[in-house]
């Protein structure tokens, strides 16, 4: 038995190519701790599902090693890995009842009849479907099928459960409800979960850590708050949450900070994360809720004049599109709090923000 502090899963220099020409996964190194809820997040084609399939054993790694509990599983057949998996379309066996579906992994493990019954009942109770054992999957709603799929992946007590966009087919409300349910099941069982999704809110809601994939590379691996507040590069900043992007050129470096001359605007004081040397292009990332409209004089080092182009009332906040520094897609979220500034379309405003909230990053042009 390996040391409990050792990671449960390790990807060591893993590469994957389907055609021998293009690397879908490029040199992946990733440690997944015991009991962790790790989400692989990324746009389609970013390599996240491929990683999951390699871990499940349905795709061989072209190069590198994947270990589970300290032993290499590169050459271990999928059915010997003991990894639970929830599929995108649930993959509940249509010719079996719900109870038979749940009993299947236990039967192939040659468990006793009474043990199977007890475990199936416990698993069904866990997902609040105690009375549905005799039904066929087709007689259940989408959410219920989803719960059965989760229960089936957990019923044989695997240490690791993989989930491949399991909530993709559900409507928004149900999806949010299921997010909490899965999160609670994870917390109460202490099982390790690797979750794949392209929905960032899902990733932020459920995970201990999120690995943002793009172009076969993990762009950033961090807890949700860090991912949102401290994106490491322009891709993550744009992919996670809403983001104001200002393009410019680095004109000065001063310790942790730098000055970026924004195209068509003026010099902006920013926190240097990944900007290049002086004279190189950089992008500035600024969250819309970190911008203040008409701030008191002297509060912020960065204050610019702008013009309100559009106002959208969203209840808890007002989304204002402001033309700042020659960028007319600059979004400011004005909280609908007591005494918030009253804006009108076409009016001139001043906007300001701190150095720390404005992160100077590399330039990401998009795929």
């Amino acid at each position, binding site marked *: 038995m390996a040391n409990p502090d050792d990671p449960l899963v390790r990807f060591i220099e893993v590469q994957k190519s389907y055609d021998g020409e293009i690397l879908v996964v490029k040199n992946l190194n990733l440690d997944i701790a015991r009991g962790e809820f790790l989400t692989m997040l990324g746009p389609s084609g970013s390599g996240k599902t491929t990683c999951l399939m390699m871990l*499940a054993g349905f795709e061989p790694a072209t190069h590198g090693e994947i270990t589970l509990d300290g032993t290499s599983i590169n050459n271990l*057949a*999928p*059915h010997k890995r003991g990894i639970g998996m929830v599929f995108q*379309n649930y993959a509940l*066996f249509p010719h079996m009842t719900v109870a038979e579906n749940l009993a*299947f992994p236990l039967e192939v493990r040659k468990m006793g009849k009474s043990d199977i019954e007890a475990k199936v009942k416990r698993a069904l109770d866990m997902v609040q479907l105690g009375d549905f054992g005799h039904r066929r999957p087709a007689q259940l709603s989408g959410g219920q099928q989803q719960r059965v799929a989760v229960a089936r*992946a957990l019923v044989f007590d695997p240490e690791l459960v*993989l989930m491949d966009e399991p909530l993709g087919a559900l409507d928004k409300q149900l999806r949010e409800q299921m997010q909490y349910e899965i999160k609670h099941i994870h917390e109460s069982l202490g099982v390790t979960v690797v979750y794949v999704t392209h929905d960032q809110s899902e990733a932020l809601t459920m995970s201990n850590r999120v690995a943002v994939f793009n172009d076969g590379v993990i762009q950033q691996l961090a807890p949700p708050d860090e991912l949102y507040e401290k994106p490491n590069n322009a891709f993550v900043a744009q992919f996670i949450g809403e983001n104001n992007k200002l393009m410019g050129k680095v004109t000065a470096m001063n310790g942790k900070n730098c000055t970026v001359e924004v195209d068509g605007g003026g010099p902006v004081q920013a926190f240097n994360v990944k900007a290049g040397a002086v004279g190189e292009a950089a992008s500035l990332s600024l969250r819309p809720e970190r911008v203040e409209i008409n701030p008191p004089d002297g509060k912020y080092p960065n204050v610019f004049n702008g013009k309100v182009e559009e106002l959208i009332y969203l209840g808890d906040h007002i989304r204002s599109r402001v033309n700042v520094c020659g960028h007319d897609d600059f979004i400011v979220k004005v909280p609908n709090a007591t005494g918030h500034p009253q804006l009108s379309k076409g009016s001139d405003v001043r906007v300001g923000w701190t150095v720390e909230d404005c992160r100077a990053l590399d330039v990401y042009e998009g795929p």
Partner: protein
Amino acid sequence: MSDQVTAAAYAGPVLAADGTLLKDRLNKTMRRRKLIAAGLVLPLGAFVFITFMFPIILMLYRSVDNPVVHDNMPQTVAALEYWDGQGIPGEEAFAAMVADLVQARKSKEIGRVATRLNFEMSGVRSVLTGTARKAKNMKAPFKDALIAANDLWGERELWVTIKRMAKPFTASQYLAAVDMRFDIDNNMVMQDEDRQIYVTIFGRTLWISLLVSVMCLLLGYPVAYLLATLPLKYSNLLMIMVLLPFWTSLLVRTTSWIVLLQTNGVINDLMVWTGIISEEGRIQMIYNQMGTVIAMTHILLPFMVLPLYSVMKTIPPSYMRAALSLGANPVTSFVRVYAPQTVPGIGAGSLLVFILSIGYYITPALVGGRTGQMISNFIAFHMQKSLNWGLAAALGGILLVGVLFLYWAYSKIVGVDNMKLG
């Protein structure tokens, strides 16, 4: 206006805005649609009725229809009506027979009557035609005259047969089709041992059809699985290879089997050349049951592959993956998860192949030899050679009932809704 509608809802039948019954209104608007729908299916419906339903009904009618004696020997039929079938009938029956024979000879129908009676009691044909020639010059008492012409006229069996055939409808063709006959006392008994043939042939037909279905399933299942799981560029090629036989003349395919399988054919030559069998030990692979089964399996294979394929294509690969991830080994996964989901395809393919084989004609005729003949070959024989259309119709009728029964059993066991043909 809307008040009126609401009020009408309380008062009883719902009225439309103009005060007419809503139901009538709805029927009126739907009538046009129904007419159009009926018009669309009418040509095909008429075609199917004229070319399919009508001939079948006619054939089934022919299997029980028995007009020859009834129409051409009216006086005898009338005279025999109250005969109790014991001994031989009285003088009036003999007189009526002579009169009918004269009349039938004149109208040239005597041949048909003789043939029909000959099916029931062999040897009668010559008696009837021979007697008919002399009948014109016969004088009373006709009983003596007829018996003098041929001893058979004094036999009770002949008269019983004539009385039985006098009825306009008969079950005797169906009895003959299952190797039975009426004996002299009109009891149903089995045909003599050496004349029994159709039950064996029906049995053989079922056996060959079953064998062909099983062979098609065994050969077709892996192909269909490959078709459903291979990447598109390979599966397209494979699909063409599956369909290729469809585009080749059945006759060409059957004769090429003759080239391959005959005693001096390619396969035997190859086996002798490689030393697997000796020159004297050449295997008879054609002109017997084996030839029929091999050639029919080849021809009917696509009818198994296509329904299987169409079912397998709808099974997402994630089912197998789910079974594997749950710890089942590949064989268990296949048997317990994949195979049960292909049952509709297996059912449809097997039923299709079985029903097609049960009525197969050309292949057994060409490569079946003596032991590979099926019931259709005998139906064809009675249609073309013996001209006993009634028996052919009865054999066909039994075949039809058998197929309908199979279909019924299938729908009871598996359910027709579960069948998937494409």
